[in-house]
């Protein structure tokens, strides 16, 4: 089996008496979608934050591409190739779609501390930005202000900006949130293609999407992983059904 790109080893984080993450081990291998599911308040966001670098764990470490990145900042991890999309769209709202994508391409290329040449005339950056917009299907709206985009388009742009970084792995926090049936279908198809480019650690509430997409699923309940395995294994796991899927989730 190929070496995992991302490894989480024994991560723990407590807020006072609340154990938000309890001894979590998981990994992400090339070419796969590893879905992280769990009921509200299970600690998914806390875990994602620790992997992305926004929150320091109490114990354990995060390895990216064989390198211990636990002490690195969010920005440093992004530069190493950890592409992240947020649960709530996190974009520069005053900017056009293209400007947001160029910002990503600029982050990838570096050289932010340049003060003279107009950035929106930089052919290399524009090319990278447009390629990413093309890939998510936003090429037609590149001049539209981000604040005027529909919710679904913002989610797409979020992914496009992550793409401009040419990441080695994606960290996606609920990319389907609020997309509607049609949007979810399109995003599902898109992510299925995207995972060949870089594997995806996917936090998602939409169970149909998760079951359709994931190569592996880890189930997080009360800060701990109670089951991890293929879709079949997790669906059949009695503990998971009891703790999480309930009656309505039974296949």
């Amino acid at each position, binding site marked *: 089996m190929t070496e995992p790109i991302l490894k989480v080893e024994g991560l723990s984080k407590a807020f006072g008496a609340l154990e938000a993450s309890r001894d979590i081990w998981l990994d992400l291998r090339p070419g796969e979608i590893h879905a992280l599911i769990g009921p509200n308040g299970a600690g998914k966001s806390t875990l994602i934050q620790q992997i992305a670098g926004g929150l320091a764990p109490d114990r354990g470490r995060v390895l990216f591409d064989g390198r211990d990145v636990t002490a690195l900042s969010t920005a440093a991890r*992004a530069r190493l190739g950890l592409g992240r999309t947020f649960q709530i769209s996190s974009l520069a709202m005053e900017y056009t779609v293209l400007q947001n994508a160029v910002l990503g391409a*600029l982050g990838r290329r570096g050289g932010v501390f*340049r003060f003279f040449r107009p950035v929106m005339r930089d052919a290399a950056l524009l090319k990278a930005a447009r390629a990413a917009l093309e890939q998510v299907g936003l090429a037609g709206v590149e001049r539209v202000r981000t604040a005027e985009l529909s919710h679904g388009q913002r989610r797409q742009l979020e992914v496009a*900006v992550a793409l401009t970084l040419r990441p080695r792995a994606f960290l996606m926090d609920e990319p389907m949130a609020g997309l509607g049936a049609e949007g979810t279908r399109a995003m599902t198809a898109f992510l299925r293609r995207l995972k060949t480019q870089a594997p995806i650690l996917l936090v998602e509430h939409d169970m149909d999407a998760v079951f359709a997409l994931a190569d592996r699923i880890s189930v997080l309940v009360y800060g701990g992983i109670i089951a991890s395995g293929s879709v079949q294994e997790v669906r059949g796991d009695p503990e998971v059904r009891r703790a999480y899927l309930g009656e309505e989730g039974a296949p």
Partner: protein
Amino acid sequence: MRRERSLNMALMAVLLVFPLWAWSADEPFLITLSTRAVIFAIAGVGLNFALGLGGLVSLGHAAFFGIGGYAMGILAYHAQTYTPLMEWPLLIEGSKAMPVIWAVAIMASGLAALGIGALSLRTTGVYFIMITLAFAQMFYFFTISWPSYGGEDGLSIYVRNGLFGLNTMDPITFYAISYGWLVVVLFVVSRAARAPFGLALSAARQNAARVQAVGQVPYRLYLVAFTISGAITGLAGALFADLNRFVSPTMFSWQTSGEIMVFVILGGVGRVFGPVAGAALFILLEHLLGGVSEFWLVYLGAILLGVVLFARGGLYGLIAGREVAHD
């Protein structure tokens, strides 16, 4: 965008024609008034670089304005009294040469902004406002109790500093120098705003998490912006001191910080030429309303209130419409 550009041109044209008219009509006072507007505009453009682009609400830019002023005052004072500024470890003489004074003012205020920014930028929001204010107040009280350079009374410089043998005491000459600096500063700032740095800085203001997620550190962007901002305001301070041939702790007072912010808000936060309009309007109001009543600040307050409540984009927002993203 088009309207904004025409407004920029119109504004700069008025600032060129009006003093020339005043010169031909032999109204030196009006030239001096215009010079004040132009110098305040430079200070405002400096603040706007941090405030408009980076969202850094600094209520301490008087610190940089004052440092620029004292850079001029101290250098010129030593030159006019023929006393060295420093004898050990190396001999430093005073100077009456504008280029030297400008360079010192820009470097000293930039360095101060770097230090103040490095500490202040660890906070945000109201705390940032308060800590920048506190730093400026430190300078204010320090200069008040610094007898070597006049303390509370300030320092008078008898003759305006020199530049290439020009007669800088001639109001129109000094106006031309100030206007030239305004053009240079506007050019530098508008280039920077559209360059990679401007894109990243403004993005950090809009959404810091986004900037981090693309691998950049907002703190560094803010710090560089704050340093440049302080250096520009420091240059304005040196020019202002030269205009009055006088420096005093008032330049460091929090009212000065407030006034610089008023230029920015009146003109339009985040518009490169906004503070130029704001400073010009401020001087105009000061002149017109000041003639009506000595309590003219009450009227200014009412106008400011109106701008904040009904015209958030200031003069530029009112005339040129909403800001359009650069293409």
